[in-house]
């Protein structure tokens, strides 16, 4: 890894810390950190029960989606790949929409089951002997996405007015305060799986060049690829079941980072985790403050904030611009 890689990781970590401190303090009602920690009401409740869980969820969600984006683009060797390419989000959406239509309370669980089922079908389709065909994966994922979309449209058409509202809200994706117990297991899984993915960073570098390239340098490509798809799918599936589909993060953060850092996954993956998390925290903070008390769906903001920034980056494609 180039020395600049270490510097970038440290800078990203510093930026994330700043964002994490600032974000829970921002909001429609003014609170003070000292009063929140002293247990003074309402600062304490607003900080610990309304804002902090949401900030942590945004951090974990953004980190997981960005890491998965880097991983899927590398394994599929397709710059247009993103965490939802394999149909995880459409599976999750179908699950959630069915739950809403049937009046089940456990929307999150239903979406998790939906994501898992679609994923198993896509992976099952792409198994050729002991390896997975990227080509079949891509096409099956795209097909699954459009089939799931058709199912959602159909169910939406049958739904009552209030169900229809709930469906639209879910499909827009959004972050809400969740219980600390949920956050605890989510963070264990997201941090654990991401760390595992980062540990294999040198191997991803070779796989990004080609299967034969990696295999002829001593890497068991079939096993590594399978592990990669499982890791990315677990990350995306869990996050999506809690937040709904949040587009753009997993596509744009990896590309923005590659333009700045180059393609070395040893720098790319840690920075994607840190800055992807920071990016979603910032977007979510904006989404609840810009036109408060009304919220802008966070998916709308990720596209509206990230899009122009990325286009600017693409246009002024010079490395060493800020790192």
């Amino acid at each position, binding site marked *: 890894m180039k020395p600049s890689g270490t510097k970038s990781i440290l800078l990203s970590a510093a930026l994330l810390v700043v964002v994490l401190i600032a974000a829970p303090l921002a909001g429609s009602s003014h609170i003070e950190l000292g009063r929140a920690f002293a247990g003074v009401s309402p600062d304490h409740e607003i900080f610990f029960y309304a804002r902090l869980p949401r900030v942590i969820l945004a951090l974990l969600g953004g980190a997981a989606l960005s890491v998965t984006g880097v991983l899927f683009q590398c394994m599929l060797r397709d710059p247009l790949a993103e965490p939802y390419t394999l149909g995880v989000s459409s599976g999750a959406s179908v699950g959630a929409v069915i739950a809403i239509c049937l009046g089940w309370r456990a929307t999150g669980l239903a979406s998790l089951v939906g994501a898992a089922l679609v994923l198993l079908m896509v992976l099952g389709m792409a198994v050729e002997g002991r390896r997975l065909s990227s080509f079949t994966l891509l096409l099956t994922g795209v097909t699954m996405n459009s089939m799931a979309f058709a199912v959602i449209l159909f169910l939406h058409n049958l739904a009552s007015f209030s169900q229809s509202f709930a469906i639209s809200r879910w499909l827009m994706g959004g972050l809400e305060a969740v219980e600390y117990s949920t956050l605890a297991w989510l963070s264990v899984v997201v941090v654990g799986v991401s760390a595992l993915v980062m540990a294999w960073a040198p191997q991803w*570098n070779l796989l*990004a060049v080609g299967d034969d390239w990696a295999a*002829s340098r*001593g890497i068991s490509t079939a096993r590594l690829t399978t592990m990669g798809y499982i890791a990315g799918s677990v990350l995306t599936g869990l996050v999506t079941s809690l937040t709904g589909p949040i587009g753009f993060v997993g596509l744009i953060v990896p590309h923005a980072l590659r333009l700045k850092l180059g*393609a070395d996954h040893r720098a790319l993956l840690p920075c994607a985790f840190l800055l992807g998390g920071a990016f979603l925290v910032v977007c979510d903070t904006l989404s609840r403050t810009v036109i408060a008390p009304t919220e802008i769906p966070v998916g709308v903001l990720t596209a509206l904030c990230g899009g122009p920034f990325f286009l600017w980056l693409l246009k002024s494609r010079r490395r060493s611009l800020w790192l």
Partner: protein
Amino acid sequence: MMSFTAKQLGFAYGLYDASFEFPRSGLISIAGPNGAGKSTLLGILAGLRSPYRGSCMFAGREVRQWPKRDFARRVAFLPQSVRLEFPFTAEEVVLMGRTPYASGWFQTAEDRSAAEEAMTITDTLAFRGRDFRTLSGGEAQRVILASALTQRPEALLLDEPATHLDLRHQLSLYRLLGELSKSLLVVAVTHDLNLALQFSNRVMVLEDGRVAGDGMPREVLNPELIAHVFGVQATVHGSDRPWLTYEQTYEA
């Protein structure tokens, strides 16, 4: 002690009953028409195509039974061309060759000195920091070769290394391969019979998945064999350093 020893080697519908022994040094060219099984054979030698029929040993051990990492320290493979989607620098591509020696996440001083050495040999140091995708065909090919050399291989397998190169680069590449083949085995698939004639110690010609000729370049690459295998009438010129010209298509 031989490096590769094949007995009745076959693969699916691409290769049948190939038997040969390769020495531990020298430049061996593999020639033949499209679809004759050249790349398949090279892939088997590189440990990338399995399961194969028959036997293919490297250093006394069946290729498919070699632990992948150990094998990659002794045999290096160069694909025909490398197309990258992502902005790796030339030096990063070279350093990937050190993977079979890596023990962790970071490159060691030894990795860097091996890369430095390989880039010196292949004359690629000047653009080490450049995005691989911006390199010319000749530069890219040399970077790929440098990457393979950092594996410190005993055998170097190349799939059509000169195809995308201009004349001058073809010659300098083959001169370099000839130099390397004094201390290690170099096996190169090629379509250019004149390059094979000029630089290699041995030529193996494949036709429809079978070995049609194997031996000294001047003896193997004779007009009869070329007419039979390639369907082209060839004339051999000169005797000290022979070269071939091809005439009209031979109608079988």
